[in-house]
């Protein structure tokens, strides 16, 4: 690679050509107009796409939303596509919220721990390796994690965790059994565990960025006051970085809400409440995946679109909250694309 190539103002033959033969006014004027129009139209197509998604999902789901009313649809607990043709999305809404929030709670502290460790403790080479591996977690396709969950994690968890707890509860606390549910391996608990692994990179990336952006003087000041390394982090660094940490957590929540394939493969797919900890459940994306290809009734199809619309609204709220926080605390970069 030569220096010329790195400096386009040098390397552009067209530029040198133009110097010799200045372009006509028409070429400049027309070219700039056309370029601006094309670029703005391409940009506007993204706006149209985002707006179109809301309109299309609402339009396609309107039959179901009209029949049950939006609130009736969201709070309805019966989802019966076969006999009564009654559709209420509450079980899926519940499943999505429970799995996502639980996954966030499980993954939050380890994820922050990784961020602190790579930013403050690890030597540069180790930090680079860990960074790449964390990014790799986000890169592994959801279906690959799903197939691992089906054949490795779920059976292992059933034999080594769920069954022992279940048999213990059976003899000691039979009252717990309905809460624990059927320990078949595929259910809310397994889906939540997988989900909590998958959202770690999003929390870690933003948290690490926020921690790195804390001024060195802040650390040195508390170091000079005699604080231990952990006290520096706890009292000088983390309070300063809390905006980025919060934004990362909200962003992770958004990813957890939308995560589809791994959850659909592991949650066991049960459409009726009550859900139990080990037992099967469903989330909004998982029910769309499982039923959309087989939906024949118009109302069923429309109800699945209405589930999609509800998912859109929730994802929108969470994303706007994350965007507001990143802007408020002016966090740049650190995103997992």
């Amino acid at each position, binding site marked *: 690679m030569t220096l010329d190539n790195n400096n*386009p*103002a040098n390397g*552009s033959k*067209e*530029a040198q050509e133009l*110097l010799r033969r200045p*372009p006509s006014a028409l070429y400049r004027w027309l*070219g700039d107009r056309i370029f601006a129009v094309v*670029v703005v139209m*391409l*940009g*506007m197509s*993204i*706006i149209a796409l*985002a707006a*179109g998604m809301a309109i*299309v*999902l609402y339009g*396609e789901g309107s039959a179901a939303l009209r029949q049950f009313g939006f609130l009736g649809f969201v709070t309805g607990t019966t989802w019966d596509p076969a006999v009564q043709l009654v559709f209420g999305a509450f079980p899926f809404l519940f499943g999505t919220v429970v799995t996502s929030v639980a996954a966030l709670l499980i993954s939050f*502290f*380890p994820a922050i*721990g*990784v961020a*602190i*460790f*790579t930013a403050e*403790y690890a030597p540069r080479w180790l930090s680079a390796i*860990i960074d790449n*591996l964390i*990014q790799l977690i986000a*890169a*592994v*396709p*959801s*279906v*690959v994690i*799903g*197939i*691992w969950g089906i*054949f490795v994690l779920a059976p292992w968890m059933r034999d080594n965790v769920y069954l022992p707890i279940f048999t213990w509860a059976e003899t000691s606390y039979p009252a717990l059994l309905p809460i624990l549910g059927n320990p078949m391996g595929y259910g809310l608990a397994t889906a939540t565990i997988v989900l909590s*692994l998958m959202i770690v990179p999003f929390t870690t990336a933003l948290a690490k960025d926020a921690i790195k952006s804390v001024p060195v003087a802040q650390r040195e000041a508390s170091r000079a006051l005699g604080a*231990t390394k*952990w006290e520096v982090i706890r009292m000088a660094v983390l309070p300063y970085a809390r905006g980025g940490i919060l934004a990362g957590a909200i*962003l992770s929540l*958004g990813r957890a809400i*939308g995560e*589809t394939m791994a959850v659909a*493969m592991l949650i066991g797919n049960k459409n009726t409440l009550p859900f139990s900890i080990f037992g099967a459940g469903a989330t909004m*994306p998982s029910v*769309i*995946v499982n039923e*959309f*290809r087989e939906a024949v009734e118009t109302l069923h199809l429309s109800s699945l*679109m209405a589930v*999609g619309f509800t*998912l859109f609204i929730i*994802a929108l709220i969470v*994303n706007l909250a994350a*965007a507001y926080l990143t802007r408020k605390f002016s966090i740049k970069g650190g995103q997992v*694309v």
Partner: protein
Amino acid sequence: MKTLLQRNIRDRIMESLLVLSTIVVLLPLIIILVHVVLNGISALNWDFFTQELGSPSRAMQGRPTGLVHTIIGTVVIDFLALFLAVPIGMGAGIMLSEFPDHKLNPTLRIMNDTLNGMPAILKGLLAFVLIVKPMGTFSGLAGAVALAFVMIPIIARTTESALMSIPWSIREAGLAIGLPRWRVVLSTVMPAARFGLVTGTLIAFARAAGEAAPLLFTSFGNNYLPNHWLGMLLGPVDTLPQRLYSLAISPYSHWHSMGWAAAIVLLVFVIFCFATARYLTRQKH
């Protein structure tokens, strides 16, 4: 008041907790990678890359089956999606970076981030309504459009940051020697930002290549290679992530091991894209 010893012990405990949490997070990843390789490597043979899948009985009778139609379908759909997504994504990125005063930019930025954060399955539903419904059939084209919806916001965002990293002095130099604005962008700014642009496109490509959710009800899946090349666009087409899902939830053990092999191929492909993107990012600096 805590003694110095107590504080130092606490310091040590927290440090080991941080190390522990790093291990806890990374261990599952290593276990997943090891399991995928161990379980899939045996099914990754010549037939896998040369034969069609066919019906389940084909595998049970011991006749050769493979996923050649899936691999071809994936390549066609992914590149078609890239072809659709690059102009729109880069156009939006250029608008954000080169026309910073445009009135629509704040809206565009919010809409783009929103679109990026939307679950991929909703992009599949959108492509279903826009393409599959009017066409009356599941098609590779619909799958490509759905994947393009996944790629577009990523390309737009990475293009914006790649172009923004080019100093304004380069644009001013171009304008000073009499280049029109569009030539400044296309002939000086974009070539200067080429590493960033390629990196962003690769990341978008890899991200979309791993998505199964948008393809389930757009390109749908197909156990055979389409008879005619047009069937790739106008009929149901198989893709790796969606086939992997179907194989994993199927009741046939032969298909399960084929699913693991598909997981290796998908993983290697995606990791290759991300590693290349990382390498290029390092080149830039």
